[in-house]
């Protein structure tokens, strides 16, 4: 990786996270240097407890770092206050979680419009954006449904629509298919692939090698450190068809 003319979408320098649990320090992330270029699709893999989720949470400001630097879109972000992080998330970062985390009390439409409204869009603009996104994701007829009435795959697609509502610079996805069956997984990955083709930067945590196969680049963590960082040949970038056999991981 060389320094590009445009600033990296995300850039970390020696990022460290130490949890204090019951007086014992737990090193969740131990010095990660990661650079994600605009338009890149990075999959973060690793076994349970390797620090994947902690890393993504820190990249989005959901969790504070113990030391090190985080740069988002060329600006230093690790020194931001909680509120400044929140405003940064509104504008530049979209999140997708394993358990969807839709607001149950709100309809699908409200869930998707919420970030746009939060970002300062007018009600009309938010509605138009929501209609467009739900249309793209094939959920137009579910707009007035409550999240509990949807299948897992549908819920995750709504969550994706919500994350994309403000056209974020970076989409952070934490095990987006971890709670889905294979058919729903396929649906969600297809959407992610399409979004990526339109130029969306994505950082996705997964422990499923087939899912990771969709990405441009796979970063593998073990015990809080990067043990492998490899690009995947473009021809392999297909959601199905034996991706699992292609990606060989060391360690």
């Amino acid at each position, binding site marked *: 990786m060389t320094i590009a003319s445009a600033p990296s979408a995300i850039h970390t320098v020696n990022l460290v996270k130490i949890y204090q649990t019951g007086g014992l320090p737990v090193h969740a992330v131990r010095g990660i240097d990661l650079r994600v270029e605009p338009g890149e699709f990075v999959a973060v893999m690793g076994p349970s407890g390797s620090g994947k*989720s902690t890393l993504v*949470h820190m990249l*989005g*400001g*959901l*969790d504070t770092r113990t030391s090190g630097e985080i740069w988002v879109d060329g600006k230093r972000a690790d020194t931001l206050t*909680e*509120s400044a992080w*929140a*405003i*940064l*998330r*509104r*504008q530049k970062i979209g*999140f997708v*979680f*394993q*358990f*969807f*985390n*839709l*607001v*149950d*009390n*709100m*309809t699908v439409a*409200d869930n998707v*419009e*919420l*970030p746009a*409204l*939060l*970002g*300062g*869009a*007018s*009600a009309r603009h938010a509605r138009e954006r929501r209609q467009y996104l739900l249309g793209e994701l094939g959920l137009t007829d579910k707009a007035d449904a409550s999240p509990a009435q949807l299948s897992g795959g549908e819920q995750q697609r709504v969550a994706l629509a*919500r994350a994309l509502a403000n056209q974020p610079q970076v989409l952070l996805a*934490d095990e987006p298919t971890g*709670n889905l069956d294979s058919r729903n997984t396929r649906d969600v990955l297809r959407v992610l692939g399409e979004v990526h083709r339109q130029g969306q930067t994505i950082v996705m945590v997964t422990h499923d090698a087939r899912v990771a196969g969709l990405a441009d680049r796979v970063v593998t963590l073990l015990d809080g450190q990067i043990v492998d960082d490899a690009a995947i040949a473009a021809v392999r970038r297909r959601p199905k068809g034996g991706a699992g056999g292609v990606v060989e991981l060391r360690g």
Partner: protein
Amino acid sequence: MSHSTTAAEYRWVRADLRARRAQALLAILAVAGIVTALITAATLLEDGTNPWRGLFVRGNGAHVWIHTKDAPNPATLKGLDGVTDVAGPYRSAPATLVQGRKKTPVALQEMAAALPAVGRPLVREGRWLDADDPEGVVVERSFADAVGLRPGGSFSVIGLNGATHDLTVIGLAESGDQGFYPEWTPGLAWTLAATLEQVEPAIGRSESVTGLRLADPDDTSLIVQRTITKLAGQVQRVSTWREVQASMELDNRLLGVLLALFGAAGLVAAALAIANATGGRVLTQQRDIATLKSLGFTRRQVVRMLLAEHGTLGLAGIVLGVICGRLITVYALGETVVIPLSSAPLLAIAFGTALVVLVAVWLPAWRGGRTPPIPAASVAPPRGHLSRMARLALLVRLPPALVLGARDAFTRRLPALLTTFGLAVPMMMITIGLGCWASLDAFKSHPEQVGQAASLTVRPGSLTSQAANRLALADPDVVAAYPGTEVDALVPGQTRTVRARALGTVTDPYPFSVVEGRLFQDRGEAVAGQGLLDLLHVQIGDRTRLTIGGTPLIVRIVGRVLEPEQDGEVLSVPLDSLAPKDALPPQFYSLVLRQGADPAAVRSRLQAQALEVSQAVNPADRLSVIRVIIVALVVVLALLGLANLLTASALGLRDHALDLAVLKAMGLTPRQVMATLVTGTGLLVVIGVGAGAVAGAFVSSGLIDLQGAASGMGAGIGRAPAPATLLLAVLAAVGASLLVALIPARKAARARIPVTPR
């Protein structure tokens, strides 16, 4: 912040309120209930202790009454700046009312057969004056009660010229233009002009009475001055609404303090209920709040949303409560209450409650704002060791459902504490309310224990005091008669006089209710009420020097008695302590009646024998409005307890939804699961209700005594509620709570439990 980010907050609040309509409604109702109860109580208090206000407004009273020799020109008075209307002038003449051998001064005042616009007497019984019935008069009600006149009855009056006229009572009326008899003398009777003319033909022996209605009552003294100047030397005397109001006002200190106490406790209970409900809601929403924060909601926005949502419910409750309070005073209490609550207490109630609501909501909202933004973080309660309670339950070999329930009850410390307190405070207040009730009952059934051994007081009137004594003792229901005299005593260092009551003698003392020290046993010894001890800053055992009718008297205060009169500012001495010129003959005899005798019957028998008899007013009668307040507050407190309970049970269900799947997998039957859930809530209920009842029982009589002391009557009036009553209240509270907890538990136990986190 732009307009649109508010739109996002608004959208979430709206969605959340829609999702929990019933809970939101309950929160509104709880606050509305408290506000309604406070307003109703305050209205009753204001109206009950200040009857002048109602009479004055209903009768469109005149603020100032001017007594002049000749009738002034009403147009002149009406032309005065600040005077909006004039009543009269009416002719008024003194006369003497004769009943048997008893003579009472009375003022006869002319009025037209058509009621005037200003200063209108309010007919309570019978009818108003009628031109076709010249002998008919309308008598002021308190005066009629005192002299025993009824509509249809007849009496004679003697004019100043000595001629006797027979008149008939055709109606009784009240008026806000003159105080109640006997505080305000002479008694008043309204007659037609022609009738007055017959009784008192000489214009020179009558006076003219004119009422002025003012634009601003605060200008009274100014306008009185102007009128006196205007009528140059004509004015004989003036009475103002302030004097009338003061003479009608009851001592409302005890009531006021009790009401304030209940109001404050009600507000505390409301605060706990709201804090608990909001806190519980925020806890169940932690995941949603975390999601919102991951979307970019700031901490401040989250706090603001929660404050807005829950605060709006509280404020809606206040508005609803104010409306309900008004409606209740207008419709339900329309007969007793004329005027709605004046604005100062109304505003105090509304703003006080609003403040309480906001503070109660702010804390959970602040905690909600601090939710970490990672929605995946565990929101399950801390699990692990069995609580001490659960270990105890295991030790005594309780069924497993109870043990599990006992463990569940305390998994979340703060909510458990809030729930327990939230139930304990209402229960404590209910117990204190029952204590007040018991104290009032004790007042009623044992007046001799609250300083009212004698229920009747006889004044000799036209008889000699020996004759009066003899007549009184001849009545079969009279057990004893104690001679007494009341004089004003000057106390050094005091600008005002205190009441000194000489009652009973050293050898035959009146049965005072001595609660501290002992009764006087010798001349020069005295007992006093709490009010007097406070006023003079003296204690039992101190000597004090007074001047009675110019004669100095040094007494040693040897005991404190319960003193229901004069705010307790009464010093009681044996009659033989006074100088003979002050003591003899005794002004009155206090009659102790046979247990179970009807004081009213004895009174009318004695009155028939030309004795002046007055009946003691039981303090409980003056406090009867408290009973209404107690019932209303018990209802509201129960509502608050219910709100707390629903929060606790919702929280319990949510916390243990996952456990339930495990429990079922372990082989617990739905019935056992239900028992587990009910135990989890029920244990907190039992602890809260039990603690509240015990605290209330301990506190209530002490608290009532404290109020008694503050009102001057003195400690020693408080009674704890009867154990049976208390037990019944506790059982009712626990039983109702368990029933309420049972419904959601039943539903949960039968439902299929999802195994995924959501």
